[in-house]
């Protein structure tokens, strides 16, 4: 219909920022620390995946006659109390720490997002119920909760997932709920309702995509947290069990030799520190990149 000649095809800003994604990437890349963090995380992931191919050493071998060897060309960081190559152990530890960081964060993210969206969107009794549940989880000192789970279910990797997810989902739900409440007031949600769009569709197609940036940020920030939790649990003896090598466990064990072989404790501690820092850098960077305030 050409009668509306008033419209010219001149667009606010068409060329460059044609996707949210690219925009985010650009802002993210301007943040030097975030990029460094991302590189470190990338390296970590790479190592975690390919370590069996990289390292010539067996992380579980016990060679008691090679205990506490100092760093050498064979054992770059020396060996531990069983004569295992410390570097290899730490790199295998990266695997566990990553898995422990990612899996429960993801589970709590999924649970939290679903709960949060339902709670925020439906409101009323559902909201009260879910929020009471979340309050309960949040009021429970998390380490104790995790310990109870680990003690009762048994200390293994799978139960760590359960424990940490149990600890983590409530916080996610809270954040997602408050965001949902804000989004719910948006006119495009109202428009969808006015069109007769069903609740499920609104939640899936409107609310969920809009909380994704928040979820990404929460995810990236909860990974380091989960790594810390795991290290605390392992330190208390209810986390990952030997002979697996999570960093927390390595520190807890290495601590016994702090005075005779300090590297055995210090290096995994540093690994935790670096990994947690890296993830935090990435998380901060993502938050800045996805935060609407930071744009323009």
């Amino acid at each position, binding site marked *: 219909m050409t009668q509306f000649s008033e419209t010219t095809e001149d667009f606010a800003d068409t060329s460059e920022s044609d996707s949210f994604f690219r925009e985010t990437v650009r802002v993210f890349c301007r943040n030097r620390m975030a990029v460094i963090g991302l590189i470190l995380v990338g390296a970590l992931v790479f190592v975690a995946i390919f370590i069996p191919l990289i390292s010539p050493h067996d992380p579980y071998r016990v060679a008691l006659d090679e205990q506490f060897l100092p760093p050498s060309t064979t054992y770059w960081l020396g060996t531990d109390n069983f004569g295992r190559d410390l570097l290899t152990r730490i790199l295998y530890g990266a695997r566990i720490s990553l898995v422990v960081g990612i899996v429960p964060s993801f589970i709590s993210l999924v649970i939290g997002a679903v709960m949060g969206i339902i709670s925020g969107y439906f409101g009323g009794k559902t909201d009260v119920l879910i929020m009471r549940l979340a309050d309960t989880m949040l*009021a429970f000192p998390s380490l104790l909760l995790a310990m109870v789970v680990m003690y009762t279910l048994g200390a293994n990797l799978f139960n760590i997932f359960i424990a940490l997810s149990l600890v983590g989902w409530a916080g996610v739900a809270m954040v997602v709920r408050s965001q949902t409440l804000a989004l719910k007031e948006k006119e495009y949600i109202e428009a969808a309702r006015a069109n007769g769009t069903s609740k499920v569709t609104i939640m899936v197609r409107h609310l969920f995509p809009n909380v994704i940036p928040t979820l990404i940020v929460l995810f990236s920030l909860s990974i380091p947290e989960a790594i810390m939790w795991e290290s605390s649990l392992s330190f208390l003896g209810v986390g990952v069990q030997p002979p697996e090598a999570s960093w927390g466990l390595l520190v807890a064990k290495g601590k016994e030799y702090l005075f005779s072989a300090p590297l055995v404790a210090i290096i995994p501690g540093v690994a935790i*520190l670096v990994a947690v820092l890296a993830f935090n850098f990435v998380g901060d960077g993502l938050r800045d990149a996805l935060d609407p305030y930071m744009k323009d």
Partner: protein
Amino acid sequence: MLIFVIKRIAISIPVLIAITALLFIMLNVIPGDPIALMMKEHASAEVIDRVRAQMHLDDPLLTRYFRFLFAALQGDLGVSIKLNRDVTTLILHAFPNTLLLAASAAIVSWVIGIPVGILSAVRRGSKLDHFFMGFSLLGVSMPIFWSALLMQYIFALKLKWLPVSGFYGFEYVIMPAMVLGWSSAGVIARLTRSSLLEVMRLDYIRTARAKGLREILVIQRHALKNALIPVVAIMAIQVATLLSGAVITEAIFGIPGVGRISVNAIQARDMPLLQGSVLFATTLVIMGNLIADILYSVLDPRIRYQMKGGSK
């Protein structure tokens, strides 16, 4: 205000009950026996059975739970299976220590975190900012058990400034409070910074500048109070975090607090004791929430107004 407080407390009761139920279920559905645990290696099966029956631990789950709940509602948390002492007394003994630890850690975290956050925000992008934020992130990223060990090594063993462990006076509180407070300080510093930056973008800051107010006063008079509101809000979460941290800190520094008791209780499946200590810890968290809300309202007149019951 009083109504508000009462209301808040009333709301938390279901939370407390839910927590006790949760714990009860978790510790009871899984096989494991507090009596066998208590008697360990030496006791014969008959002795174990006899003692268990005497302690009414053979009753059905629900019976036991409601017996516990009923007594708890009357203020009786029962007697610890393992310690054979009244749970309330035990906790009241341990509680002040944990409270002291958590409170001093909180103070440390605020005294460090808030000024650091403010300075970083004010000098946003400067070297100082980077340094402070790096330092905060380090605090956040360092496992407590790890920094505790380092501090003990440096300040107690090498420098001999502070005692290694124990809880017998002011000098004993310093190190655990620092260890525990540092990680929280990082969180607080980061939050203060981002909150302040957020507030500095608001219109009324521009208004204050338009009046010709010095920048420092703009921050002090106009930005700070508003920026600290969310910082106050995380206080409640901080209480939970500090209590979690206290479990480790108490173990390392030999502090006879609730954290130790709870760990003992978990390990021994000592239900009454665990229920008691978790109830106390949870109550503490809920109190933290409450205090945060009250502070919130003190800081923010909009909420104060609401709490008085609707605006006129």
